[in-house]
């Protein structure tokens, strides 16, 4: 009984609860016939939001004002360049992944250089970078859709023991993220910085180094997500990442991570990602239009922040 009660104290429980309710409402339309299909689809597509969401979560954990708006452009550029480089050859799969990661590193570096050297607020710095990255993506191959190598396409679209492979990848990344956050010194550091930057400095934490690594990490995760998504959907498109700008932020917030920083949690990202996918599916299933869907999304975000937040001095 008490363990059940303490479960409700966890910030991530709300997103899982919401995802479950929506899932249930959706499968009831077919009286449960769609259970497996819907669940598989949900885990497949949630996987991409989870990967970018985790990166964004690390950045948001750094405290007020920290956010990365270059995620969509990073996804697009990484996907485009990697697929162009691999050029449908299975032998190039690893090189493609490496190139995607290098692109992530370069963009992360660019972001932090602007933030630190020019003292631009992260919101504007990462936005400016994203414009440049988007142009680079157009310039590299003018939007031609190159197919992924067959093995990679096969891998990203199939399942293992009924679990989508991309969901497994996302799960592995989540476990790594969870390990980093909960078990390592680095995780303690970002949480400390998010709670109070001066206190973190005084506690001897290398604040700039930690923030820098975090922005790198976010960009690399975005580029890996772009790489996988491009392979999954049969080619990179120039508008591929645009969806993930708001999604990456929304899953973090709905997942119960404190927007004021310092407190993050990985399970919530999964709950929120599943929820974001399922809510669209539910509204589509019930035949509701885009307008209602948007309004509900907005109201849900506000309700979650009202339920979960409001205790700490927020980011202004």
């Amino acid at each position, binding site marked *: 009984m008490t363990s059940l009660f303490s479960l409700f104290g966890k910030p991530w429980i709300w997103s899982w609860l919401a995802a479950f309710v929506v899932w249930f409402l959706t499968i009831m339309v077919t009286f449960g016939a769609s259970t497996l299909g819907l669940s598989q689809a949900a885990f497949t597509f949630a996987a991409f939001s989870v990967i970018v969401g985790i990166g964004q979560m690390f950045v948001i954990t750094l405290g007020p004002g920290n956010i990365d708006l270059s995620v969509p452009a990073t996804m697009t550029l990484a996907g485009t360049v990697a697929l162009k480089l691999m050029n449908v050859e299975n032998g190039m799969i690893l090189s493609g992944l490496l190139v995607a990661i290098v692109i992530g590193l370069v963009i992360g570096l660019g972001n932090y250089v602007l933030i630190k050297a020019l003292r631009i607020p992260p919101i504007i710095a990462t936005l400016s970078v994203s414009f440049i990255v988007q142009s680079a993506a157009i310039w590299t191959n003018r939007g031609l859709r190159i197919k992924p190598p067959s093995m990679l396409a096969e891998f990203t679209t199939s399942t293992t023991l009924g679990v989508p492979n991309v969901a497994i990848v996302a799960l592995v990344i989540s476990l790594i993220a969870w390990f980093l956050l909960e078990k*390592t*010194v680095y995780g303690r550091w970002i*949480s400390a910085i998010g*709670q*109070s930057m001066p206190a973190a400095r005084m*506690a001897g934490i290398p604040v700039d180094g930690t923030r820098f690594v975090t922005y790198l990490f976010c960009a690399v995760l975005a580029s890996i997500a772009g790489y996988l998504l491009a392979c999954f959907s049969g080619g990179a498109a120039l508008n591929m990442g645009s969806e993930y700008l708001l999604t990456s932020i929304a899953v973090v917030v709905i997942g119960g991570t*404190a927007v004021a920083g310092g*407190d993050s949690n990985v399970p919530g990202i999964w709950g929120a990602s599943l929820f974001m996918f399922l809510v669209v599916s539910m509204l589509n299933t019930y035949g509701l239009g885009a307008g209602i869907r948007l309004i509900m999304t907005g109201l849900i975000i506000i309700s979650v922040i009202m339920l979960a937040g409001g205790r700490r001095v927020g980011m202004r």
Partner: protein
Amino acid sequence: MDDVLKAMIAVEDAKVSFGAVRALDGVTLRVMPGECVGLVGHNGAGKSTIVSVIDGGLTPHEGSVASDGERLERYGINAARGRGVRCVFQELSLCPNLSIVENTRIMHRHLGGFGWRRRAAKIIERSLDAVFPGHGIDSGRVVGDLSIAERQMVEISMAFSDAGIAPRLVILDEPTSSLDASLARQMLDHVRRFVAAGGSVILISHILHEILETADRIIVMKDGRVVAERPAQQFDHHGLVKAMGTVAKEETGDRPPRAQSEAALVLSHQTAGRPFTARKGEIIGLAGLAGHGQTELLLALHAAQSGNWLPERDPLVTFVAGDRRLNGVFELWSILRNFSIASLGDLSRRGVIVPDEEQTKGNDWKRRIEIRTPDMANPILSLSGGNQQKVLFARALATHAPVVLMDDPMRGVDVGTKQEVYAIIREEASRGRTFIWYSTEMDEVRLCDRVYVFREGRITAELAGDAVSEANIIAASFEGVAA
């Protein structure tokens, strides 16, 4: 009873607590028209708190406020201002982004309407001219552009300004901390004029001669209570200090005379005044009036010795914060995590924290420094302030940094704990650790082997061995201040 009827303001038996801290423990205080009351007491005695009660910003949990013989039930900021209560707060309370005229507008709620700028300018200029003749401050200037002294002048003039409701009681909480002697003189003269014209003033200051020569009556506070109240003529400097309880306290911990000069130099720093050096095993005090550059030196020492980009395996310095909220505790975390954050390097293998070692070390220090909690996994905010401070001590002492910087770390720490911590500090020092200790408490300063005295951001004196005494420190603190 007669007094109560006549009193401009009368606080009866006010009690205020902040969580576990008893800031006011039954304070009774009256201010008559045409009287300047001096209020003195050690840091944290509750002076600013009683000010907040009088100016309506804080409702006492027990007790009452009366004015002109009438008991005020719904007393708040607006009621107080309506009765002519004005306040100059200890910390800057102007809006730095606004001009002086605009700040005047904010302070006087009823100044609105067409042409308020002209009126506000006239009001504040008249008041500035009256308090600080020949001030040379243009009322159109933005407060952020003013020097600290100019800001304080504006604030003081603001309190004495009259925009419809004439000021009747002006509370000055350490108003002269940033003013030089002649400006302070001008202000004190104005206080006398104001009182002579029938106004009331509460004057709070740590500069005792100001109180002695300006106040009609002096109230001494200690630990949230009034411990003495007499006409000013009946006090002299020594009597006042004695009443504050500073000297009366028995000698805490005799400092064994130690020869230090041959110990290895661990730290040196070039400052605006004398050079700063620290040797192995020394306890070095930073003294002087609050806010005269001691914290800045500690921050500079810390910044110079710690990297911002790469983690350091063997940091030279560690820091104990005095301002817990700002740069001490991590509010979302447990006690254990708050404790271990600075020594994670020792508690981890290849970046991975070893939970058992963390737990063991945490429990070890919990016992050693007696952190009063059933479980180190409890949130840090469940601890009382004093216990939180102990955690910060443990955090610093648990590292193997050879130099510990302490920024007035005993705020809110009770006497018993202090003695425990003093013992630990002495023990660690004898093992070769260096402590650099800023303190506002004379007792603590006297524990030090060597003391640097600060004034206006520079080191003005260095005292060592037997020269470390209250008299010498006070003398050095006020060096250059004309009385």
